[in-house]
């Protein structure tokens, strides 16, 4: 067991000289930054070394942040750091509601990742159901898949491949780094249920994807 050396917890006040005002300012800055809600001046006084002048430090801190991208503001009875109101438009994408991908979508994505480049017909063959247009659209919108080269077989079907955005999201460097079923099991990430051997001819179906021609080109 590693010994995590305990830091000497010395906020013991009184014994130490009052830190300079610039240091008090630093302390308040850190507390306000890390706090989940506004902090009252009384609370700051309680947390800072004895003899600190919270009022004065706040004045300094406030003027330091004047005109910056972040401001020191009063919120109710407390103090907080807030981004400058004129930069609100930058925060727009912060609020995202995350929703899990549907089963159809994740299965389709998995097939594309493991078999790319793969045609629509191949995806349907593996899943055993036909592929809805919405699924492909959704994965495209997420920028996780894109069109690959056309397959050089009769009908020249379109193929799908995964994007760099996909690799990024899933923390992979290349699609080849996807773990195999056996490796997952070894890493303890999968039930150790027996997995029948995989057998599938990667024969190209000659299949037309009418209506998608115009989407080709990336």
């Amino acid at each position: 067991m590693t010994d995590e050396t305990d830091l000497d917890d010395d906020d013991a006040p009184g014994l130490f000289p009052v830190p300079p005002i610039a240091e008090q300012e630093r302390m308040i800055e850190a507390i306000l930054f890390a706090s989940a809600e506004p902090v009252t001046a009384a609370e700051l006084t309680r947390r800072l070394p004895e003899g600190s002048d919270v009022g004065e430090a706040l004045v300094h801190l406030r003027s330091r942040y004047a005109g910056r991208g972040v401001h020191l503001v009063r919120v109710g009875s407390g103090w907080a750091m807030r981004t400058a109101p004129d930069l609100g438009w930058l925060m727009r994408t912060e609020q995202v509601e995350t929703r899990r991908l549907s089963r159809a979508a994740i299965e389709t994505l998995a097939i594309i990742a493991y078999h790319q480049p793969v045609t629509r017909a191949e995806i349907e063959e593996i899943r055993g159901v036909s592929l809805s247009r919405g699924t492909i659209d959704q994965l495209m919108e997420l920028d996780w898949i894109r069109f690959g080269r056309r397959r050089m077989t009769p009908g020249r079907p379109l193929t799908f491949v995964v994007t760099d955005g996909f690799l990024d999201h899933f923390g992979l460097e290349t699609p080849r780094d996807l773990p195999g079923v056996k490796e997952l099991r070894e890493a303890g990430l999968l039930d150790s249920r027996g997995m029948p051997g995989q057998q599938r001819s990667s024969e190209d179906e000659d299949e037309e994807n009418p209506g998608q021609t115009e989407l080709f080109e990336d």
Partner: protein
Amino acid sequence: MSDAEATQSGDSVAARLEDEALIVDVDGYEGPLDLLLTLSRRQKVDLRRISVLQLAEQYLRFVEAARALRIELAADYLVMAAWLAFLKSRLLLPPDPSEEGPSAEDLAAHLAFQLERLEAMREASGRLMGRDRLGREFFARGEPETHAIEKRTQHTATLLELVQAYARLRTRDEFRPYAFDRTDVYPLELALERLRGMIGEAINWSDLAGFLPPGWRAAGGRRRSALASTFAASLEMAKQGQLEIQQGETFAPIRVRLRPQGDR
């Protein structure tokens, strides 16, 4: 402890006592290498100058002592013991020029390297965990701001979900339900629909074959399928009292007509 043992040199007794102290702790070791590292620390020298021969002897003594105390040692401890016994004999004997493979010195050097490396990683992990850490010594923004003007739905999935989905598909492949994949099949539903639509015209007896859809009339599999379905459809309609069926003799054409109004 017998008197005979007590007469041994003080050094040896001390070593034995230490070994026995270790035995109590045998569960505390993660494996032979871990044990070897602990033993090697007792040489009180830089790991680079460790005496592998001495270490091998210490280890073998430990295993002996464990046996004497009837302590079950895991197989990997015994494998290591066998290997060290072999290494010890090789180190003691003059090299046999006819022998192939790495020299005893190479093997000993590698063991020393392994110990040094494990020690280094232990130290490194200690230093790593002793670092200033997020949420302990330094902190992230406590109140992330979300000036959301618009809400956006982001779909997300983890790598594990992705891979498990794939594994699931791979299993299911084997159990794909039976499906009728043939294309040249004229379904009963279609035949029924077609016959219902046309029967009104059949006031007189008409050959069933006349109701076959265009494109399914040429001889062959398609015709057979369409004829069978149309016949089945006619049986169904006859059962419902909507038409009558007639066949002059065996293998003669089957004829149908709308059931006369009065009979309904």
